[in-house]
């Protein structure tokens, strides 16, 4: 109990409050800019957190992520160009409302739904993560090894249409993640006589390169090759009923918001699915169960509520596998996992024992971030709407130069900038050729832990030959991993054959 109170008091310290506030504000601003999303923002801002205490750093990054999720709705509603896939469903009803002059109303509904989904999800995280982590403590190296194997197979399917290319990307990520000091012999491995590689590749330049720099390369391609232009935003109506969401309107959507939040929590807690799945699933369910189905797609608050409550609920829920098992379920959480590691913590069930006060401090920051999101969104909405019109000629140099200096900041070494450029280059080709950079990054982050667990299993097995086979949970997880691979291949083979037949018929 003392730990809980101390943690919450830490979260309420002025410096922590300030950085959570700043994180949420920057997150909303960045999310509102088309083309910049939460994980990218986290990658860009992790170097800044080197100089903060762990709680302040994680609070700032969590606020950034929460803010960016709502910020994505701003461009989706105003321009119908969602900066992130999860905001796509929001644009289906948000943009028609904007065309009717009700853009502010749509954004307010998006804000309230986001905050509702996020708040419910945060409460669920707080309620179940610690008890589940206590159960997870009974897991040994065999279970951890099997669990990471399962996570890698599930994650291989993210961000690509092909499980084969996903596995190749995850394999490369693991290989790159193994560069550095080998854990058993403590000797350099795969360093290719480059002394800077002796301590391995840092997450920051790799993540900035793959997430931010390669994205900017692609956006610049669209911008310079096809030409960019100013966005045209429809003017907001000045009528009060077109600007505000009344309590009656909000509470009329309670069921939709609750359903969306639960879908978001379920999807977020499962590694590999992510916010877009939650958002589309919730929108689909809301439409099927609505009494006014015909209004969907034409500008209904219910559609916005369904999408936003679900995608925002994913943010906190996706931390459940991180806190309970030490496994990142999506890219934003993978970045947060990197931030934890940079600050000397290994996410997982042991965190509740080793850093209990910090964990309760993080819980406090999560709740405070939800409150700040409501306050900042409520009073700063019109200001954030202006962010969608930041000229590209000003935005891109800022982002590119921040990528360069952010990579340098970690070790004060230009070698990291070179690494960032190389991974930006690789990331560009991965995106163009449909290789999942998400699977690469998660493989990169999980590789050392995976190898450590394997080494422990092998060393224990030298004394207890059938150790692995005596652990039913580990065996079950490995069987599940195998099942996931076989099932995905089989499904992909079946779908491929069907599409091949269709293609042959068309020819």
């Amino acid at each position, binding site marked *: 109990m003392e730990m809980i109170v101390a943690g919450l008091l830490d979260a309420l310290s002025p410096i922590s409050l300030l950085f959570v506030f700043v994180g949420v504000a920057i997150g909303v601003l960045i999310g509102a800019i088309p083309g910049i999303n939460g994980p990218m923002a986290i990658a860009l801002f992790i170097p800044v957190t080197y100089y903060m205490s762990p709680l302040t750093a994680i609070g700032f990054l969590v606020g950034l992520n929460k803010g960016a999720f709502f910020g994505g709705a701003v461009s989706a509603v105003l321009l119908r160009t969602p900066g992130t896939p999860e905001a796509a469903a929001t644009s289906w009803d948000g943009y028609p409302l904007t065309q009717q002059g009700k853009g502010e109303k749509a954004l307010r509904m998006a804000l309230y739904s986001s905050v509702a989904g996020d708040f419910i999800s945060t409460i669920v995280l707080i309620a179940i993560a610690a008890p589940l982590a206590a159960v997870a403590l009974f897991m040994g190296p065999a279970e951890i090894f099997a669990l990471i194997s399962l996570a890698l197979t599930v994650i291989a399917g993210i961000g690509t249409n092909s499980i084969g290319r996903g596995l190749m990307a995850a394999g490369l990520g693991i290989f790159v993640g193994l560069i550095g000091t080998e854990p*058993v012999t403590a000797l*350099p491995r795969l360093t290719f006589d480059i002394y800077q590689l002796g301590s391995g590749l840092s997450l920051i330049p790799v993540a900035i390169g793959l997430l931010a720099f390669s994205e900017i390369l692609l956006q*610049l391609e669209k911008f310079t090759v096809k030409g960019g232009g100013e966005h045209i935003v429809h003017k907001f109506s000045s009528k009060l009923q077109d600007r505000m969401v009344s309590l009656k309107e909000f509470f009329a959507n309670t069921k939709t918001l609750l359903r969306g939040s639960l879908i978001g929590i379920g999807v977020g807690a499962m590694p590999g699915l992510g916010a877009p799945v939650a958002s589309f699933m919730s929108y689909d369910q809301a439409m099927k169960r609505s009494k006014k189905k015909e209004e969907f797609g034409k500008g209904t608050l219910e559609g916005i509520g369904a999408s936003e409550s679900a995608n925002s609920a994913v943010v906190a829920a996706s931390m459940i596998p991180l806190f309970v098992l030490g496994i990142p379920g999506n890219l934003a959480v993978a970045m947060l996992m990197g931030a934890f590691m940079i600050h000397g913590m290994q996410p997982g069930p042991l965190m509740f024992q080793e850093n209990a006060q910090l964990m309760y401090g993080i819980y406090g920051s999560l709740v405070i971030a939800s409150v700040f999101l409501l306050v900042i969104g409520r009073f700063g909405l019109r200001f954030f709407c202006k962010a969608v019109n930041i000229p590209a*000629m*000003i935005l891109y140099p800022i982002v590119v130069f921040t990528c*360069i200096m952010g990579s340098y900041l970690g070790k004060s070494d230009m070698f990291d*900038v070179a690494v960032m450029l190389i991974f930006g280059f690789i990331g560009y080709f991965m995106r163009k050729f449909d290789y999942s950079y998400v699977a690469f990054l998660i493989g990169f982050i999980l*590789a050392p832990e995976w190898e450590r667990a394997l080494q422990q299993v092998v060393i224990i097995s030298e004394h207890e030959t059938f150790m692995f086979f005596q652990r039913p949970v580990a065996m079950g997880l490995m069987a599940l991993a195998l099942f996931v691979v076989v099932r995905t291949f089989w499904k992909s083979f079946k779908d491929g054959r069907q599409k091949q037949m269709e293609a042959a018929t068309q020819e």
Partner: protein
Amino acid sequence: MTRINRDIIAYLVIIGFCILMLTWGIPTYTPAYPGYGASPALVPIVSISVMLFMACLSMFRCCVAVFMNRPLPIEESKFPEELNEEGGFTQVGRVKLYHLVSIMIPCVLLVVAIEYIAYIFVSFVFLMIFQYVIGSRKWGQSIVVSVSLTAVLYIVMRYGFGVPVPGPQIF
């Protein structure tokens, strides 16, 4: 070049990389087995073998499509721009090499030049060139962006974080 041909070349590059790593990279740059635990080469070999296996399998699939006339699903054999599917979230497409090189060259030059020339000069020149490359022709705006960005990051790094800026120090 068709998408299938491009994919075959990509798989060949991956296969070449995997073979190089399995025959030279891993054996040369991995410590010897210490006599206990798993070999330090085990996980690198497993990860590269997964890549090699998947690349061979995928290439075989593409070759069957090309040489045995069994068409692949349309979204795997055509570029999104050929299907008029641009504007979605897919980033798959043709590589614009000229664009890529024109952006990368100033960045690489910055990394090299900053070792010898002071940060303030190199950053200013880099930002001016970068803005020119992406199409900015408003010189006044370019100068303002370059000067302010260089100065802000200098102040943030030097006085905010206490980190020396890269390159020779002139202040």
